[in-house]
């Protein structure tokens, strides 16, 4: 079965935000092993698609990987609030909400929301750990990120570097090396951002329910379902210069 891809975007007056998210879905959709099945914009970006809602199937968990363009929500003057929420059309999705990403499918969450993955010893990005059901990675920014004409390609760049090796026909005598998914995010951010901005990610290692150890550090995007880190987990976060 093909892997499924989702995109969510809120323009807020800047159409480039739509293009940034949709370029992620569109790029992967060119591969026969991926289907871009969810695309929701503006008023259709709903909290219930990210947060556990009784009697409802959250759309974020109907895909394997997704990209989102919306604001990080916080009090800019209070660093203890940074990275605790992002905007949706009908409110905000907060770390305090019941979130179980990967309950069915989701492995990779990515967003350009400012400071969503801000990390300090006193305001740890570990606030997002309760959202990790079978999730492997969250990709985002430690600082603010820019929105504009020259960031609209970021989603597509991330997708093409993450799936780089999958664009080559299998069975060739010569197969190129591939980028790890974390390096694909770093490269896409360096190509599209100011050097003062910092990319970031949060990832999980752990055992599968069958007891197999899953180390996501050098994980590459594959067409098959990966083993999921669900038990005895450890979490790692990293940030660096764009």
């Amino acid at each position, binding site marked *: 079965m093909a892997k499924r891809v989702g995109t969510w975007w809120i323009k*807020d*007056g*800047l159409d480039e935000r739509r293009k940034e998210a949709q370029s992620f879905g569109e790029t992967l959709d060119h591969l026969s092993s991926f289907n871009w099945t969810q695309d929701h914009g503006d008023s259709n970006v709903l909290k219930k698609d990210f947060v556990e809602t009784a009697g409802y199937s959250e759309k974020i968990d109907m895909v394997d990987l997704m990209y989102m363009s919306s*604001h*990080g*929500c*916080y*009090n*800019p003057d209070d660093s203890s*609030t940074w990275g*605790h*929420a992002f905007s949706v059309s009908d409110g*905000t999705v907060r770390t305090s909400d019941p979130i179980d990403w990967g309950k069915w499918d989701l492995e990779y969450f990515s967003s350009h929301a*400012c*400071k969503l993955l801000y*990390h*300090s*010893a006193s305001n*740890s*990005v*570990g*606030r*997002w*750990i309760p959202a990790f059901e079978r999730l492997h990675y969250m990709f985002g920014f430690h600082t*603010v*990120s*820019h*929105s*504009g*004409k*020259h960031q609209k*390609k970021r989603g597509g760049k991330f997708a*093409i570097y993450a799936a780089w090796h999958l664009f080559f026909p299998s069975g060739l005598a*010569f*197969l*190129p*090396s*591939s*980028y*790890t998914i974390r*390096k694909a995010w770093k*490269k896409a951010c*360096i*190509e*599209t951002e*100011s*050097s*003062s*901005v910092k990319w970031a990610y949060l990832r999980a*290692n752990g055992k599968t329910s069958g007891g197999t150890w899953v180390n996501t*550090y050098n994980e590459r995007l594959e067409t098959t379902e990966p083993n999921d880190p669900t038990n005895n987990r*450890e*979490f*790692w*976060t*990293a*940030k*660096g*210069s*764009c």
Partner: protein
Amino acid sequence: MTIKLSDIDIVAKIPELASTMPVFEVERSSFEERKKAIDFFAEILELGKTVPVHVQNSLHLVSKRGEIQFYKPSGSIWISNTILDDKYKDERRDWNVIETKDPDDPGNSKLVLVETERKKLSEQTKELFQKADILTEEAYFCDVELDQVAQLDNEGKQIGLFAGEATVKFLYKLDGIQVDGPGAKSYAFYNPGMREHELSGIFHAWRKVVGIRKISMPGTEEAIQRVIAQDRELILYKEKQYSIKITDINLVYFSLPPFKYQDYIFPAFRIIGSAVPKDKDRKHEGFEFARFYNAAPPESYAKADIYADYLATRL
């Protein structure tokens, strides 16, 4: 609905605009001009046999160990060995470091290389960039930055702070002003080594300067008023009764991403600000924004017979 400067709380220091400013004519480097650097780094990174692959605006030379990406619109290059990291089981790298306050984030600490190591890496990189013929007079050494890595327990508490891959950063200035944007940086990425540190990749984005033109500039207030008035998001949030604040304004020269064509490097504002609901009960639902804006209007360029789409549209 429009938005005026008086609608915005500006707490940033506003940079002064001179009455005229240079605009720099730039050219992309051809593949042939970059061949020396490509061959030089491909050998150091032990990429071995490569095969050409054309993707969008780039030529990729791919190998079983990594790749060379030549960005045709700018002549920029990304060269990396993508399998070197496979020998590590996590982000940690064994550098000689000290913990210090992060100047960009006073509530946070960060790990930095000890001075001797920092100097060694900066000199190693400068020498490599000079041998590859990619370091021009506009470049300057900015810093060596270590990826900051933390291990967290199941409750999210930080249980260890570590150093990751090192990035040696060279950035660019023109006429004493920072060139910002994704197309003005030269980076080298390293893992620690026993005798020499191990280069894992480079990114060089810069278009060569071939001429200087002059344009007349508006007054500072007029220039900022013009860009704010055209910002659709700020207009939207003014309508929604948000308080809009500008917290940082920098005058920079702007360099487009390496995958875009660019003939002129031009003055721009980098503005960071916030929008927060006036209703105090909703104070946690504000957001920040970061944007580049053209500092000069299209009319200034037209008077100097300078035309390009990115000089007349949003950035």
